[in-house]
């Protein structure tokens, strides 16, 4: 089974702090994604990566950046956390999109910014 592991289940950070969310997958997937999940809004794509060192903006990239130095690891960075970034963050991976593969999600990181 594909395993996507997010390093933290819960994080509490202060406004203005730099925050790192880490995600590792063990299935050699090319694609990795970061979503945020807010009630009633479903999942919104922040950034995705289809290869090492490659990244593409999703629907809501403002205030975020990402890093993919190794194929199995995709990091989400909040350069200066703000209260409106309090949310559930979900990492996912998949095989190449052309074959309509499923997304495999981690269990999420619930971030609270105070």
């Amino acid at each position, binding site marked *: 089974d594909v395993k*996507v592991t997010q390093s933290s289940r819960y994080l509490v950070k202060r406004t203005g702090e730099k925050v790192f969310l880490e995600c590792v997958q063990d299935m050699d997937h090319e694609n990795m994604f970061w*979503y945020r999940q807010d009630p*009633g*809004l*479903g*999942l*919104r*794509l922040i950034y*995705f990566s289809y290869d090492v060192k490659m990244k*593409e903006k*999703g*629907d809501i990239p403002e205030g975020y950046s990402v890093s993919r130095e190794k194929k199995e690891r995709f990091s989400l960075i909040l350069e200066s956390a703000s209260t409106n970034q309090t949310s559930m963050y*979900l990492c*996912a991976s998949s095989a190449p*999109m*052309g074959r*309509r593969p*499923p*997304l495999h*999600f*981690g*269990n*999420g990181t619930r971030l609270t910014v105070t």
Partner: protein
Amino acid sequence: TQLLEQSPQFLSIQEGENLTVYCNSSSVFSSLQWYRQEPGEGPVLLVTVVTGGEVKKLKRLTFQFGDARKDSSLHITAAQPGDTGLYLCAGAPINNAGNMLTFGGGTRLMVKP
């Protein structure tokens, strides 16, 4: 306004009842997926539908893709408490060059024993 609108947003029913969840859009999708998310976990894929009019069954769950590939439904027969969770539809818009998935807002289902 979301590209994919799910209804209802919340549903609380008794064990044994039937229910239908809807996922609607004005856009055409090359495929549509349904996920279920349980508390404390990430979403897990239930099914992918790709052909207009397609019907897929997964035990007591029946998924249908609209003929025009703009909408989908999930019907659960004789719901069980184990069906409790957040149901998310996700589609790949046909006019999206990157073929990225867009998610609906979700339907939160609670099945009471």
